[in-house]
């Protein structure tokens, strides 16, 4: 069981090091600082939900964690090792997988061709297809269809399948629910919940909190570039309205 303390406690405590940890991370776009000292840890096999209103700094936090952005201060630790400044491609090859906001599928390629992109970690194409179509059978029916002609939910399935088949150790999801019907979002999050039983750690960034709180072990609220609250999904759910309506600062 993962406690809220595990999400904010530093790795040099008594317990095992978190799989992913941000310590005092500050980040800026040009001269405008958007993260003002973020401390966040993702324990092994846990689903950590990072919630907050638009512009809170959630996607920037994910960009720093995945190596797409270098923090101006603070450090990123993966499996106990400081990896600040490591490239996103190196981190991805090591097993940190990011599903970006907006799905990131290649619209002019077929479903199969999109899945071929997931073979970069040495998993064969046959294995990739077997696993992807087992998780999302609907993709199997549309394997020869252009990704751009899939529905929003199917595109998100493809994006998630492409991430899952690489057998990542840490999966980072950015706004999985964006533009999707609630039923499809529930389905996708059920898949996310299932993969953690295999030891995969998940960091989910979400603006629409209801679905992710159903699978999260711990949730954190972010506002104005800071983590303002960490707790169980039930605790966090009660604070959400304050955050989104601007009562929390």
């Amino acid at each position, binding site marked *: 069981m993962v406690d809220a303390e595990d999400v904010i406690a530093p790795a040099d405590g008594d317990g095992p090091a978190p*799989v992913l940890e941000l310590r005092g991370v500050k980040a800026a776009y040009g001269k405008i600082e958007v993260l003002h000292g973020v401390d966040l840890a993702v324990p*092994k096999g846990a689903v950590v939900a990072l919630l907050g209103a638009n512009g809170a700094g959630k996607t920037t936090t994910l960009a720093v964690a995945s190596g797409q952005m270098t923090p101006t201060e603070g450090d990123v630790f*993966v*499996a*106990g*090792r*400081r*990896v*600040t*400044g*490591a490239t996103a491609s*190196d*981190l991805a*090859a*090591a*097993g940190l997988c990011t599903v970006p906001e907006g799905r990131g599928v290649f619209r002019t390629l077929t479903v199969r061709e999109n899945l071929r992109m997931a073979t970069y970690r040495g*998993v064969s194409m046959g*294995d990739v297809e*077997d*696993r992807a179509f087992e998780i999302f059978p609907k993709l199997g029916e549309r394997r020869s269809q252009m990704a751009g002609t899939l529905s929003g939910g199917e595109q998100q399935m493809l994006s998630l399948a492409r991430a899952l088949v690489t*057998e990542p*150790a*840490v999966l980072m999801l950015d706004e999985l629910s964006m533009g999707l019907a609630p039923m499809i979002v529930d389905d996708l999050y059920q898949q996310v919940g299932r993969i953690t039983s*295999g*030891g*995969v750690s998940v960091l989910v960034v979400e603006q629409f909190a209801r679905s992710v709180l159903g699978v999260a072990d711990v949730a954190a609220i972010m506002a104005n570039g800071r983590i303002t609250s960490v707790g169980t999904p039930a605790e966090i759910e009660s604070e959400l309205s304050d955050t989104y309506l601007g009562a929390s600062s």
Partner: protein
Amino acid sequence: MTDSTPTDTTEGFAARVQELHVPEPKADREALLLKVGVALVVVGLVLILVAWFQASGTASVAEQVPYALSGGLLGIGLVILGSALVIRFSLARLFRYWLARIVYEHQTQTDRTVEALGRIEVALTGGSSSNRRPAAAAGTDHSSDHQTASVDSVGAAHRAEHSES
């Protein structure tokens, strides 16, 4: 499907993370500035040589002055700036190495002293120190015990004197 289990994935992940190339921004910047320093010195020297070569080709002082100013002075400036950078970052490396060496030697010396003290303790106790705690901790306790015993014995003697009187 690949036959990797979750444990394989986790262990493999930790191993791959250990192998990651993580740049040290400060070290990279220092190395770059050191190279820039060397380049500035070289460019400065070339400018001085060119200025000298051009100035030596004419006997007129009025024609030599522009070469001296644009080539010679600029060249000297670059050589000074480049030398400063080279000295600054070469010395930083040297001092870091020197400091690391001192720390290492200090640690080695401390280890030798502790080892020698251990041998002395074994020699003094006739090899029966295996049942005792480490020298540092035991020493503190012994001195404390000894002090308590001494105070007690002084107190007893004092009380005996009072009772006799």
